[in-house]
């Protein structure tokens, strides 16, 4: 069981899964950057305060009770609902592109860890039923156990090392989140 856990943990981050934020960091980012529009500093946002028209859709979506104001709690709720742990599969120019790797015959490793049969994004895309998810989980457990027996301890360590390695730096033309002052 322990070797299985090592393999399971090894690639939890997913290859190339660059800048995926944790859920709490993502929610905090959303709250901070939306609340930057709170010009009258009353702790809630009004639609008129959203000076950037690109964010009006987000405002309307967040205004769950439709009272024309958005509170921190409403932003937290929408941030938690919309956060995604899907890794960024962009690996630079010449790498996989439009269709995700593994789809439509395009080359490239699927997102997820080595040996993972159907990573979460693929499960969502395929809309697996609960019964199917359960069966895939069982199959995955068997695969993990078998893989753990095949690999030597050194190889498991190497795999873990690869997973823990920081994402490669962005190059020109690659996707990178905007940084610096923003809102």
């Amino acid at each position, binding site marked *: 069981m322990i070797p299985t856990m090592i393999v399971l943990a090894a690639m939890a981050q997913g290859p190339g899964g660059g800048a995926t934020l944790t859920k709490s960091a993502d929610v905090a980012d959303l709250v901070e950057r939306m609340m930057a529009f709170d010009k009258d500093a009353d702790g809630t946002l009004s639609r008129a305060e959203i000076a950037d028209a690109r964010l009006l859709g987000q405002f309307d979506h967040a205004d769950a009770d439709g009272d024309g104001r958005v509170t921190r709690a409403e932003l937290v709720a929408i941030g938690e609902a919309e956060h995604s742990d899907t890794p*960024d599969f962009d690996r630079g120019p010449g790498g996989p592109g*439009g269709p995700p790797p593994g789809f439509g015959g395009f080359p490239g490793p699927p997102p997820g860890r080595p040996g993972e049969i159907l990573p979460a994004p693929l499960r969502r895309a395929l809309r697996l039923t609960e019964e199917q998810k359960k069966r895939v989980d069982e199959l995955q457990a068997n695969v993990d156990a078998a893989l753990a027996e095949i690999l030597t301890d050194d190889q498991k360590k190497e795999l873990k090392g690869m997973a823990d390695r920081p994402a490669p730096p962005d*190059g020109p033309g690659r996707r990178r989140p905007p940084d610096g002052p923003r809102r």
Partner: protein
Amino acid sequence: MGSSIIRASGRRAFLGAVATGGAFFATRGLFAEELARTPSRTEGPFYPDKLPLDQDNDLIVLGDSLTPAVGEITHLHGRILDVSGAPLKGLTMEIWQCDANQVYLHSADAGRNASKRDPNFQGFGRFTTGASGEYRFRTIKPVPYPGRPAPHVHFKIKRGDRELLTSQINVAGHPGNKLDMVVQGGISVFDRELLMAEFKPVPDSRTGEWAAAFDVILGRTPDDHVLHALRDAPGAKRLRPRRPYQSKEQA
């Protein structure tokens, strides 16, 4: 109501029409804070490997052809601005997308699906901004395809041959967005929203046309993306930009 889109029946009239860009950032200058930059996304494998002869901003009609492309006509327009909301002129926006039959203008895709490809869809277009920073395209409403449940329009912003931003425009509210790995992957909730464009029916359009407004915000100088890449690259301490970029507006 109050659409800023100027509708024109003819191709020539469309090309000459000036979409006024609407009331985006009407409050520009009120605040010292910066506008959030448009996030970049993967280029994908289908930037045309052979550019079409016709590269104008009307993707619906090829050359002098009388047969329009299949699909729902969409007027995609907006402005390219810096983080202070100032328009950026002399920038070229390129867009590319698959046709209504899900085929890209790329040998790797069109080669496999030659029989499916819509021969009347331009698949790629260009527009260079003037002093207002505005751009406009007439194209089709993007469609999903296997592997990409989110319909999208790819775009690049260039100054000359220098690429400043590569990203994708998504259809706000489309159910495929939640299932799409490019839309969802490695991006914050806030930034994801900046790549959404609301597709609104053009009032009184007999052919069911759409209008989609999408503004692009680049860094304080458009070279920021390149500078950041240099800064973050291995051995970055040795790298210095030889000529700091200065736009004409700043010069």
